[in-house]
């Protein structure tokens, strides 16, 4: 249907529901990324005009120029005093709350001279001289000479000092991100979802939103990073068959966000798309910077070994300008090395021109050596993961899926290390499902922004015509607290189909086949429908009991299977005592019988029929179960609400 063109109207174009022009911004402390929706409406991470998908959060002032992004990072070598990095974490904080004791490699944080207790940066810039007056156009008096029509030449720019508050820097940076997105889309951006870390306070969120609004972004939502990651994974349009089959809609997901400046862990419970966090943890000592430090130490040692020039880095001695500069150069160079290690299994090189005393350096490191160097970081992450999971009262065995976020999490060594600390063998990680390579859905560097844009698309489609629709929209942004507080089940509920235990077999703790319906940590109200085949007994009846169960993990120690060498060749030196292997099993034990029902099967064929069971749990804990053969009569079962 043709839309009538209004000649004199200035009505805004209606939002195209399939493809609204919204962006998702992952605004990290060190790097940011932007995602938009492609023609199919799927999220795509875009590169900025430098061709960078990972845009460094840095702003540098050099003379009359401002460098933003990765160009600004290069300024850290020679122009560190005028280069601002790591400003996101300072957003919304008072100057007195900021720890300024640590030495920095970039512009130091100072107190704003005019605004009290505000963090700011002081940079030296060249201020362009004011433009000359426009040439006079007035007609002159008769005897006075005509004013020259040639513009007065511009005078030289004058050096000046500029004080920038943290939010001003953020505004400059977000403006440049927005510009990149608009250049890519060719359209004005209608709204954006920006990710924030879980530990951001409401003041920090407000400061970020204000800065973004100042930059001309209409913020649809500030989305928790873990949520963005989960949304990106859940909304995956091209999920390979292997991941969809092994993962149901109900799962426990561990989000490992190893950025360059911090590690953030979140344990999420995803129940049919509803996400809530079981536990979070963040550690600012682990991250890409720690890996960098280890690497540059390694390369500096190599350099010294090769050239006999002493070089001390990480930290460089305060009195040696040369070493400091060499460290800055190495830091820039190892970025490339890290990316090579992530992408390929071969050796990665690191080359720096004129590292110290005019000597160039080129060295290489292979994956093994790399993993050895940064093992401490991996181990630190592993320890934190264990702490987190146990703090949620779960076992590593309960985690169904790991999602990696952040540049440093792209390192395959991390995944290998985590796989060895006691997770299930069939745990799904982006590496195991092969979605990391080639900018796949599991790509840790772009995951957050892609999740943010998926969320933005969802929000852009919301109407605002009625009071209730406004309320729904507000549930994402202003009035979060009204809606996010929910009640969840503390124990799993499911069906037990009693069976005759075979002679000699160990008695099953449940006395039958267990079919889980509602797992623990499921948000109420909830509804689940399952369908399965069931064998019908002699009398043509199907009976089941509704149970609430306890789950636990049983750890048994087993002897590893011994290799039986053939031909009787005697084994030689490796006669060490082999360690017992921990074998974990999920144990389900009955807790409370909630009810039972008997169903007459009328449609059984070959003693088999298909049963459909629906369970509804209301917010007050009232349970309704209805079971029927497909298309047949229903048998219902009710459990009174809690406290009734």
């Amino acid at each position, binding site marked *: 249907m043709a839309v009538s063109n209004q000649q004199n109207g200035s009505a805004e174009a209606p939002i195209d529901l399939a493809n609204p022009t919204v962006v998702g911004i992952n605004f990290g402390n060190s790097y940011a990324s932007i995602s938009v929706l492609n023609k199919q409406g799927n999220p795509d991470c875009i590169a900025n005009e430098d061709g960078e998908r990972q845009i460094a959060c840095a702003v540098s002032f050099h003379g009359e120029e401002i460098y933003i992004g990765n160009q600004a990072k290069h300024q850290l070598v020679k122009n560190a005093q005028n280069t601002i990095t790591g400003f996101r974490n300072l957003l919304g904080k008072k100057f007195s709350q900021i720890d300024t004791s640590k030495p920095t490699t970039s512009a130091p944080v100072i107190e704003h001279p005019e605004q009290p207790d505000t963090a700011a940066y002081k940079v030296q810039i060249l201020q362009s001289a004011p433009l000359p007056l426009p040439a006079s156009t007035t007609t002159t008096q008769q005897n006075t000479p005509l004013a020259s029509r040639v513009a007065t030449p511009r005078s030289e720019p004058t050096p000046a000092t500029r004080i920038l508050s943290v939010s001003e820097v953020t505004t400059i940076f977000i403006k440049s991100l927005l510009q990149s997105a608009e250049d890519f889309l060719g359209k004005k951006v209608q709204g954006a979802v920006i990710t924030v870390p879980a530990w951001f306070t409401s003041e920090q969120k407000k400061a970020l939103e204000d800065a973004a609004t100042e930059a001309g972004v209409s913020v649809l939502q500030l989305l928790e990073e873990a949520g963005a990651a*989960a949304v990106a994974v859940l909304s995956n349009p091209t999920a390979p068959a292997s991941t969809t089959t092994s993962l149901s809609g109900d799962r426990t997901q561990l989000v490992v966000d190893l950025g360059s400046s911090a590690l953030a862990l979140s344990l999420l419970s995803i129940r049919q798309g509803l*996400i809530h966090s079981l536990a979070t943890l963040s550690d600012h000592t682990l991250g890409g910077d720690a890996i960098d430090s280890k690497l540059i130490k390694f390369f500096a040692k190599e350099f010294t070994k090769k050239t006999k020039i002493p070089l001390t880095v990480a930290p460089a001695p305060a009195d040696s300008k040369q070493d400091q500069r060499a460290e800055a150069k190495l830091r820039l160079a190892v970025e490339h090395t890290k990316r090579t290690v992530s992408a390929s299994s071969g050796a990665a090189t690191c080359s720096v021109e004129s590292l110290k005393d005019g000597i160039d350096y080129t060295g290489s490191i292979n994956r093994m050596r790399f993993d050895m160097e940064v093992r401490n970081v991996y181990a630190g992450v592993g320890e934190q993961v264990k702490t987190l999971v146990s703090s949620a009262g779960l076992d590593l065995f309960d985690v169904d899926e790991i999602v990696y976020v952040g540049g440093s999490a792209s390192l395959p060594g991390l995944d290998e290390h985590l796989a060895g600390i006691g997770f299930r063998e069939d745990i799904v990680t982006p590496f195991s499902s092969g979605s990391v390579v080639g900018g796949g859905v599991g790509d840790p560097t772009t995951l957050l922004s892609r999740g943010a844009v998926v969320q933005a698309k969802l929000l852009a489609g919301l109407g605002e015509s009625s009071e209730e629709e406004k*309320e729904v929209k507000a549930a994402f942004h202003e009035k979060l607290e009204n809606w996010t507080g929910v009640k*969840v089940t503390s124990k799993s509920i499911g069906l037990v189909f009693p069976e005759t235990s075979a002679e000699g077999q160990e008695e099953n703790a449940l006395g039958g086949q267990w*079919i889980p319906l509602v797992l623990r940590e499921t948000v109420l109200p909830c509804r689940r429908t399952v369908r399965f085949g069931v064998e019908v007994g002699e009398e043509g009846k199907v009976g089941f009991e509704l149970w609430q169960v306890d789950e636990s993990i049983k750890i048994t120690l087993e002897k590893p299977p011994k290799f039986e060498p053939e031909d009787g060749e005697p084994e030689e030196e490796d006669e060490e005592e082999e360690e017992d292997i921990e074998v974990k099993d999920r144990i389900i034990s009955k807790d409370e019988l909630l009810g039972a029902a008997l169903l007459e099967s009328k449609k059984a064929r070959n003693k088999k029929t298909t049963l459909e069971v629906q369970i509804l749990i209301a917010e007050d804990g009232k349970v309704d179960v209805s079971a029927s053969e497909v298309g047949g009569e229903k048998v219902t079962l009710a459990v009174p609400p809690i406290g009734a």
Partner: protein
Amino acid sequence: MAHIVELSVVPPPLRSDWTPPQSTGKSIAPLVERRLIPAGSAYLAHVKRAVHNLSFEEHDKHAEEERKRLEALYGNGTNGEDDLGVGDEEETEDLLSLDPKEWKKQDHYAVLGLSHLRYRATDEQIKIAHRKKVLKHHPDKKAGVAGETNDDAFFKCIQKAMEVLTNSERRRQFDSVDPHYESLEDEVPTEKEVKSAKDPNSYFFKSFGPVFEREARFSKKQPVPLLGEYNDGKEQVEGFYDFWYNFDSWRSFEYLDKEVNEGSDSRDDKRYTEKKNKSERARRKKEDTARVRQLVDLTLGLDPRIKRIKQEEKEAREAKKKGKTGGANGVSAKQKAEEEKKKAEEEAKKKEEEEKVARAEAKKAKAAAANAAKKARRAARADGADA
């Protein structure tokens, strides 16, 4: 829709001694407070249910309605571009194996998939049909396909068809000799067919109606009065025949011209061909005019409406007459006398004639009697002489 999880587990048959245990009346374990992460469509659904205070079933219904509304609004997956109902005609084997060198013989409408529209196709439709065909048959699309790699014959046909149909002059030339209609032209119903039909009346309109509809496209004057129906008035019928006897057609036959042999430089040759073409065109045009005339003649001859109108006119006349005789009482005596006089005169004349005839007959009889007497006397004489 409620999401149904299919499970692959198959519980074994019921234990024979199992009876449903007594309901314990217990509730589920106490609930735990958690904080949702406001993300994803599931959260949206959750909030919607809470805000609108809907149950799961009501929400399902709502979502379904919303989906349908959006589908109707934006079309199902299409970008809402209207193709004006062209471009999905089947392509037969014959059509695809057309030779672009023989483009004059191809049916351009069929090539573009417009054979259901033909001369009725608008420029916009032709454009869309062409775009669709090109998208499908462009040689670039076939580059990777196994088999003949350089098969762009049909694509050339498409381009040729487009070339002809987008130029209004050339399109008319082609329309003039459209092979589809030429074959139909021979199928004009004959007199015999109409007369032998069960219901000649309706057969006439059924068979001649489309013929005139077809011919109407050539008229310079539009709209063209069409055959109409049995109950049309005299004026309409007369208007129809008036128009068609003065039919002004734009039909021309340049399309069938023999091409001047490009290779030959001979001017004479060229002129000869041109002359021949010209005369051929004129001949065909004359034939066509004659054909239309013949058709109209035939129609007029068979038109049941003409008979009906004549009949009606006659009836009208008679009714008029009857009306006159029925109301003769008031006619003047003079007229009556005149009429009687006329009658008398006529009668006198009749009498006179009758008398005349009688006299002549008497005369004849007299002569015959005299003749007979003569004969008798002669015979007596002859008898006496013999004796």
